[in-house]
């Protein structure tokens, strides 16, 4: 099944380096927009654009406090990526289990043939 070629999922949302920088910054705790603007050294509209993408996939939540808009990380939305990495590890584990079988055969073959020196 093809995935939408938009920024509609967590993978695309974090594929952009600036957006990962924002997530990095928010990993340390909630931040107001102007602090993110300062940290990234980008113009506010650009930062807002990235934040909108992250909000659309639920990777960040926003709340208003007085005149400030405060953003925080929502790790649950990034769980597909976590699962994906686990998948990577599982993939190698399964590969190696097959390799065990191949190696067992090679060992028996070598024993059967006597020393191959």
């Amino acid at each position, binding site marked *: 099944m093809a995935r939408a070629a938009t920024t509609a999922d967590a993978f695309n949302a974090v594929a952009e380096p600036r957006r990962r920088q924002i997530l990095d910054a928010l990993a340390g705790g909630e931040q107001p927009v102007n602090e993110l603007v300062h940290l990234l050294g980008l113009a506010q509209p650009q930062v807002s654009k990235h934040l909108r993408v992250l909000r659309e996939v639920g990777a960040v939540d926003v709340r208003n406090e007085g005149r400030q808009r405060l953003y925080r990380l929502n790790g649950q939305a990034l769980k597909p990526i976590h699962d994906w990495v686990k998948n990577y590890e599982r993939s190698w584990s399964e590969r190696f289990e097959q390799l*065990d079988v191949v190696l067992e055969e090679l060992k028996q073959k070598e024993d059967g043939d006597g020393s191959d020196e």
Partner: protein
Amino acid sequence: MAVTSSGTATVTLPTDTQILITREFDAPKHLVYKAWTTPELVKRWWHANRGEVTIAEIDLRVGGMWRYVSLTADGFEAGFHGEYREIVANERIVSTEVYEGIPDAEEHAALNTLTLTEVDGRTTLTVLVEHPTKIGRDAHINSGMEGGMQDALDLLEQVAISLR
């Protein structure tokens, strides 16, 4: 008593651009090396139970190329290729790895180092995957597909923290 399987692969993150895969095998290193570098044998294990390896080409010499193509049961085809940079028989292989499913794939080649260390007839295998640039990692993350999943690992820790 010999233990046949050492269980799962261990994946760790030495640096922001590296992935280290480790696994122990109950076999001497020359056999692990053989299974790793013989096309007919690679076809038997590299599929990871997700389909089949349709192509496994290995030209095992410095400057020689390798290419693997896997096809999953649901029809997803993934191709990988690279060039051998350093070969020490039964001990070490340095090669590039290009995932063919991403744009400008060649620019995002990773450098993989395989090492085999034998103690008492058992072999510890490590594969160190190094991405030259952040862009390479981004491309891998963006692919989001089996095989293109080399990275995103640096995000994992943050995800884990925020899930607590």
